[in-house]
């Protein structure tokens, strides 16, 4: 049985110590040494500590979306639109889970066929056919497996949060049902293929026997530990396109539109941070020293970016703002996401310190110049932060800078590859470009199609009165 797993190139280990720690693998040397005989992972290759970690990580990533992201976004809109944001995020998570279980997992994480194979998976696991409580998924280590359901559900949480990120770009002025239609189409045409291109590969024990069984960008050597391209650039560019097609909010630039509750935004940002450990360290698929590395990188990059943004606020406006600090924190989380398993804590801090000024420039100067109304700065924070992180990964992964380098899995037993920063950077740029182009292009078509058919924007009067009462028949608060 062929097993699917995640990440084009996984982290190399500073020493062989961690490999030696895998008794299960040691028990299967014959299988690993002779790729001609088909490798069969056994239940003994599953460690309950890994399983526990993957389940916890999945719960943490769900917490990032609901209530995390919903509150982070919701606090920033006006009272009259609070529920619309909560509802959009909540329902996208629900719909995405159903879509993922139905046709997403198979499209992203099985081998496809024919010329399309590098770009999208097959339909062998439609409706999770063939997946059961005893099937296994590969990790990045030879001879280490996790229950396939754990892998399906962990990846499900990624499929849930990514489309939800998009809605911030055109918050306060979008019709609910058309938005849900967009999301189903976008996941199917954009998210699953990109996830397949970047993350699909046969797994360490299978790759030697199937050296071309991987996604297009994986094959190119692009690395994205936890979703800089697949999640943040992907969603960020779709958001930008959406907010331009939909147009500015009524009164934008004239009326004040202050956040209705920075308290909620702070709660959301905090839960995003806490949950993001599942996102990043969980993406290691094993609970070992590398997961701990991804964890600490995620911690310090975020802290650095928050401090960095607060300092910018102080310098520019004389006052460090909470919204600045938490925006910086999120920018730091975005930037470290693709790099979290490759960087060292000190290079993570550098990434964090640098991403904030860049994003600050985009959410202030560029947004003003570009005259687009990206309500909650999905482009400025997620897309730009994601691009910065994706390119930065190419730098900080360099073992010369304390990075984890890359692992060559083509041999029966994986070993560290030779690192070439220039090549890697170029590959990273290609992955960024392809994601921007595909997600941006398809999103444009989808938004335009909706705009000129069912309509995507509510009437001006509805916008004045608020989406909550008009689209959902409720008010957020009745104090």
């Amino acid at each position, binding site marked *: 049985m062929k097993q699917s797993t995640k990440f084009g190139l996984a982290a190399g280990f500073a020493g062989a110590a961690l490999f030696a720690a895998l008794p299960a693998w040691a028990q299967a040397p014959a299988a690993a040494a002779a790729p001609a005989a088909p490798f069969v992972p056994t239940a003994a290759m599953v460690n309950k500590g890994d399983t526990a970690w993957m389940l916890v990580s999945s719960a943490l990533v769900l917490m990032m979306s609901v209530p995390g992201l919903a509150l982070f976004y919701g606090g920033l809109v006006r009272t009259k639109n609070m529920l619309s944001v909560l509802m959009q995020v909540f329902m996208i998570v629900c719909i995405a889970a159903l879509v993922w279980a139905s046709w997403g997992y198979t499209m992203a994480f099985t081998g496809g066929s024919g010329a399309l194979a590098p770009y999208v998976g097959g339909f062998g696991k439609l409706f999770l056919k063939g997946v059961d409580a005893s099937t296994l998924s590969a990790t990045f280590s030879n001879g280490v497996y996790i229950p396939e359901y754990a892998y399906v559900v962990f990846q499900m949480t990624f499929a849930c949060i990514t489309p939800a990120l998009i809605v911030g770009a055109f918050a306060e002025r979008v019709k609910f049902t058309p938005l849900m239609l967009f999301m189903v189409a976008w996941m199917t045409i954009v998210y699953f293929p990109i996830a397949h291109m970047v993350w699909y590969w046969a797994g360490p024990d299978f790759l030697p026997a199937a050296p071309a069984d991987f996604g297009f960008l994986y094959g190119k050597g692009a690395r994205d530990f936890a979703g800089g391209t697949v999640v943040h650039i992907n969603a960020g560019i779709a958001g930008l396109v959406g907010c331009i097609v939909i147009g500015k909010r009524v009164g934008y630039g*004239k*009326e004040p539109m202050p956040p209705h509750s920075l308290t909620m935004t702070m709660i959301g940002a905090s839960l995003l941070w806490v949950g993001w450990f599942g996102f990043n360290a969980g993406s290691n698929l094993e609970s070992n020293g590398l997961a701990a590395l991804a964890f600490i990188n995620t911690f310090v990059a975020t802290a650095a970016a928050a401090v960095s943004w607060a300092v910018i606020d102080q310098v520019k406006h004389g006052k460090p703002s909470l919204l600045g600090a938490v925006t910086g924190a999120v920018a730091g989380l975005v930037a470290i996401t693709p790099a979290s398993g490759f960087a060292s804590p000190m290079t993570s801090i550098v990434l964090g310190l640098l991403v904030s000024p860049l994003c600050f420039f985009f959410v202030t100067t560029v947004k003003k110049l570009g005259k687009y109304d990206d309500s909650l700065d999905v482009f400025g924070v997620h897309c730009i932060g994601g691009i910065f992180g994706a390119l930065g990964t190419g730098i900080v992964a360099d073992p010369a800078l304390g990075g984890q380098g890359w692992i060559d899995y083509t041999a029966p037993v994986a070993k560290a590859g030779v690192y070439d920063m220039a090549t890697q950077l170029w590959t990273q740029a290609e992955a960024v470009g392809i994601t921007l182009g595909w997600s941006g292009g398809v999103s444009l078509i989808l938004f335009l199609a909706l705009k000129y058919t069912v309509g995507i924007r509510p009437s001006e009067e509805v916008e*004045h009165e608020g989406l909550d*009462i008009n689209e959902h028949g*409720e008010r957020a608060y009745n104090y």
Partner: protein
Amino acid sequence: MKLVIAIIKPFKLDEVREALTEIGVAGMTVTEVKGFGRQKGQTEIYRGAEYSTNMVPKIKIEVVCGNDLVSKVVESIQASANTGAIGDGKIFVLDVGQAVRIRTGETDETAL
């Protein structure tokens, strides 16, 4: 002196304030209120329980001004708060007997 009370739609507040500033009104006091009138409130439904609140969020503006300015104030509000749709609101004018500026103790028109 007169007290001009205007009940307007919330999103018109900025326009009205600007219009009043232009004609020389230096101060006003603003309150969030709920209005009941011809304009029907939205229906809220919570787990099947429907509430037709009948109450619509409004903004109440209170301006005290000299007698000479009153008609301009009223006209200016009427012009700037108008959308032509039901629920645009009302303007009421009352007599004010006395005005005091707390800071200085100045009284009447100089207090405004």
